């Protein structure tokens, strides 16, 4: 039984349809991440769940109660905003207590609740300060405290990490994850950052132009992207998209019949010979031969020109080129290879995903 249901939500602003019938379900205690590029409608959807922007049609159901027409304050939700939205004229303590005050909670109890939350988030020493006296990370924590103190049915996060610097972002990300694991709160989280989505979610929804592209666990989204958009959007560097043609149980790559990779029959069985396909292969599935997992069933060795080498410290990304088509490989850091050389890459085809270039959908 799902705790949060989003039923055929549509939103039109003027003639512009921003949400085109969204259906999502989330179980109690789940961590749902809405991810997508700018303008995909993810923030609009979050605002609809919060009640800040009424949908044109469709329903939001929380714990069996239709809340679509309820005022935001009556939905029993809490929200952490991108800018944190801390009231600048109030101290941290007053900020956290404000929602309780609005609900008529008595002062003594308010103070006790604030203390408890401050302790959980380790911000007790900041309670008397004003938001302007806090660092970005501290503000973020106060914003979470303001949400936590309410003990709402659903927490909403609107890109809460986008205003933090890279190092802090990783730290706070881990804190949010720990918070979820400890409190078993039900969370809906919006981000454009696919790494955040992967690390935090129990369930990811990829959105594009107001439509759900795929719903799944992080592993499903990453390993079995439903279409070219999801494949390209999730993962960095992006998945390699290699043009190919079905040919006798395998796929001829790079427009060159000379380079043919054998594919598991499950992939090619239903495809006629000569059918054009796109072979999706993550960079970590293309490596130097020394890194290939011995359990892998089908591996292809393909020689290519090296055009660029990008060491990152932990790995080295190598760009290879065959017949005008480029791909990125993730090799071990101490690989000795230089642009201009030829190099034999190992393609781990167990990880390959095949897409139909016409429909852009994955072929199973």
């Amino acid at each position: 039984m799902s705790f949060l249901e989003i039923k055929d939500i549509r939103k039109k602003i003027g003639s512009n349809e921003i949400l085109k019938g969204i259906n999502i379900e989330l179980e109690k205690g789940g961590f749902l991440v809405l991810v997508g590029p700018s303008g995909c409608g993810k923030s609009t959807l979050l605002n609809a769940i919060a009640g800040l922007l009424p949908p044109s049609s469709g329903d939001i159901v929380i714990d069996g109660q239709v809340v679509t027409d309820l005022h935001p304050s009556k939905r029993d939700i809490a929200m952490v905003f991108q800018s944190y939205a801390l009231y600048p004229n109030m101290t941290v303590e007053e900020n956290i207590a404000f929602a309780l005050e609005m609900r008529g909670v008595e002062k003594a109890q308010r103070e006790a609740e604030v203390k408890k939350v401050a302790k959980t988030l380790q911000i007790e020493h900041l309670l008397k300060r004003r938001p302007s006296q806090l660092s970005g990370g501290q503000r973020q924590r106060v914003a979470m405290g303001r949400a936590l103190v309410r003990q709402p049915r659903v927490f909403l996060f609107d890109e809460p990490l986008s205003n933090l610097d890279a190092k802090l972002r990783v730290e706070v990300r881990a804190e949010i994850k720990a918070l979820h694991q400890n409190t078993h709160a039900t969370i809906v989280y919006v981000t454009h950052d696919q790494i955040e989505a992967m690390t935090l979610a129990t369930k990811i929804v990829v959105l594009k132009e107001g439509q759900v592209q795929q719903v799944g666990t992080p592993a499903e989204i990453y390993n079995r992207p439903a279409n070219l958009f999801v494949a390209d959007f999730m993962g960095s560097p992006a998945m390699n998209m290699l043009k190919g043609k079905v040919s006798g149980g395998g796929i001829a790559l790079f427009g060159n019949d000379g380079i043919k990779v054998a594919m598991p029959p499950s992939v090619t069985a239903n495809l006629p010979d000569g059918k054009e396909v796109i072979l999706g292969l993550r960079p970590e599935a293309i490596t130097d031969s020394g890194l290939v997992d011995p359990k892998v069933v089908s591996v292809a060795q393909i020689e290519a020109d090296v055009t660029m080498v990008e060491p990152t410290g932990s790995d080295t990304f190598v760009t290879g080129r065959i017949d005008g088509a480029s791909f990125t490989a993730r090799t071990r850091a101490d690989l000795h290879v230089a642009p201009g050389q030829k190099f034999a890459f190992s393609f781990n085809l167990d990880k390959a995903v095949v897409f139909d270039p016409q429909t852009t959908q994955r072929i199973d």
Partner: protein
Amino acid sequence: MSAGNETVSAGQANAARYFIYAALIVLAVVYLLPLYVMLSTSLKSLDEIRGGDMLALPKAPSISAWVKAWGEACIGVSCVGIKGYFWNSIKMVIPAVLISTLLGALNGYVLTKWRFPGHKIIFGMMLFACFIPFQAVLIPMARLLGLMGLSNSTTGLVMVHVIYGLGFTTLFFRNYYEAFPDELVKAAMIDGAGFFRIFWRILLPTSGPIIVVTIIYQFTNIWNDFLFGVSFAGGEASPMTVALNNLVSSSTGVKEYNVDMAAAIFAALPTLFVYVVAGRYFVRGLMAGAVKG
């Protein structure tokens, strides 16, 4: 941005700087001269004014002209000085400023945080109202004040100034609240605060600067107004500016320039005081009213 060009030779640069300072000082003297002449004239005796030099310092400074302007000078037929008119202006300016500022704040709040279809047109119409020549509403207003029995009354002037100040106060607060993050209002809504609670608890406490700017702007404008005063409030109810003009342009009796100047200084004091105390906000207010939209 400051353009000091380091590539110019030192001699040239020095000459340029001498020129700059010289020009600025000469201009500053020119700008100060009328004020100086007003002050020194007000401290001179009539004989000294007639016989002496306008620019000369008073030989025997005396505040008798000030005393006379305040309590004895003849405006029209009554010779009780300008003090009554000074208080008229005070009684007019304080309620008019407070009411128009409060309404402007509420309007700005609605027009930025509680938008509804048509809010742009409404704001546009209020904005245009700032710029109309008041001559275009003078006759109807005079008629209406007459019908309401508010002709020649401070209450009537307060009403007029509130009405024709609303456009500006709304503009100031709208522009200020436009930059106020919507997320704070959304957060307060989720926290359970309503329309007025959000205004009093979240927006108003952070509106200090714009409140000061608006009050100064309104205060200077209303205090300095002449047209409404002379059109709607003659005689006893005249504001300070009208009384000053009556005093200065009256052609009966001996022309007492020192008293005229003292009265002018009284008329200028409140706004000059505001300018000296809160000059920074004063400038910001003028600019806010100037760089519209």
